[in-house]
């Protein structure tokens, strides 16, 4: 029995050595984790800008601007993100020589921008119509009402939803290996291709994603509690 445990343990530590320690393979994982996090951050920032823009377009007075905003959101939400990534890389950026990180940022930023635009829209709609009416009836203009009354309140509903979108994005970026970026998933793939070990790199990477997401989720919960608490004033 003891023998058996020792044997298992030896096999396990040998596997760990082979998959992570030998040739400093853990560095691949750390590097991949860094890329996953950085890419998610730049993409969400770009997505927020695009989402804001799309929201403005969709609230525009002019039909064709509304149509542009609508089409953007519609197409992105209607196609798999993998398709978007491939089209961005091989069609849009076909003959432009930019850093892959930029391509990734654009692809995932475009993707999340559509969802973020929906978040913005819902956030604005979540504010009672009475607030707009009160603002307008006091003689504030439409944009003043939006700036001083609606947005400051909507932000509380938008922030947690944005953070959630960030988490979604982290998980979505698992496909950037297709454009040769070396994210967390790809790091696991590379190790797998070196050691041909089916389980360990896979489970290690899954665990890292889980921890990353968990930490952020706890952060969001804290944020929501904080925002709710500050509502009670």
């Amino acid at each position: 029995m003891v023998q058996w445990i020792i044997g298992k343990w030896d096999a396990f530590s040998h596997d760990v050595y082979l998959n992570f320690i030998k040739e400093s393979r853990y560095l691949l994982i750390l590097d991949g984790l860094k890329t996953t996090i950085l890419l998610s951050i730049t993409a969400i920032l770009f997505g927020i800008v695009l989402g804001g823009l799309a929201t403005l377009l969709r609230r525009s007075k002019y039909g064709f601007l509304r149509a542009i905003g609508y089409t953007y959101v519609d197409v992105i939400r209607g196609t798999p993100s993998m398709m978007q990534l491939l089209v961005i890389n091989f069609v849009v950026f076909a003959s432009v020589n930019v850093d892959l990180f930029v391509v990734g940022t654009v692809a995932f930023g475009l993707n999340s921008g559509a969802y973020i635009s929906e978040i913005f829209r819902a956030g604005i709609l979540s504010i009672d119509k009475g607030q707009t009416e009160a603002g307008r009836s006091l003689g504030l203009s439409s944009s003043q009402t939006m700036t001083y009354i609606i947005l400051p309140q909507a932000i509380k509903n938008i922030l947690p939803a944005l953070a959630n979108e960030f988490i979604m994005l982290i998980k979505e970026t698992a496909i950037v290996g297709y454009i040769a970026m070396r994210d967390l998933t790809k790091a696991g793939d590379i190790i797998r291709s070196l050691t041909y070990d089916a389980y360990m790199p896979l489970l290690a990477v899954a665990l890292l994603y889980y921890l990353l997401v968990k930490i952020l989720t706890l952060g969001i919960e804290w944020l929501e509690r904080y925002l709710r608490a500050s509502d009670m004033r």
Partner: protein
Amino acid sequence: MIVVNGLCKTFDKTPVLRGIDEHIHQGEKVVIIGPSGSGKSTFLRCLNLLETPTSGTILIEGEDITAPGANVDKIRQKMGMVFQQFNLFPHLNVLDNITLSPVKTGKNTKEEARDIAFSLLKRVGLEEKAGSFPGQLSGGQKQRIAIIRALAMSPDVMLFDEPTSALDPEMVGEVLQVMKDLAEAGMTMVVVTHEMGFAREVASRVLFMDEGLIAEQGEPDEFFKNPKNERTRSFLSRVGI
């Protein structure tokens, strides 16, 4: 001061106002009563252009506010509105609720607006609440703040849409008192309310609306004692008068 001619409003083919003609003079206190759905709120909101009239004209001090190109924001600054649901801005404290509009519309400097706010707060006995947030106030306090928030723009007319309907019965009195004070100070007021006591005491004229029209009107004493219209009589008996 306010001249309404042939005002109609239709929502998705449902006519809600069906041709209203009405003159409201400087200093009048007009109380509007009527059954639910008769168009009272819609009428009030049309005066303020919160609803766009389908047809008809509204002249405020001679200016046609329904004309294309009318400066809606300017017009609204002359008319204060108080809602059933208070609609205070929950993210701003009481002082900021009151001073936001005077400052942002350029009517007053920050300091002026602050002074005005404090004198208004004193008038309704809520000076010490200047730094509180709406969530910390009772319903009656909220509605009093909503009233002086509108007053801070120095409007020529004040519109009230059932200002006491959302209040606990205990708090109705304090809000009506503020409105009575305002009436005594000579403000022109148009008030939709179910508070018949207030109508009797304060109104210079009572309008009874029914199905999108002004069915009957008169001075309160005469109106409540001898309602001429059949619908008015049945309405008044149902609400217990």
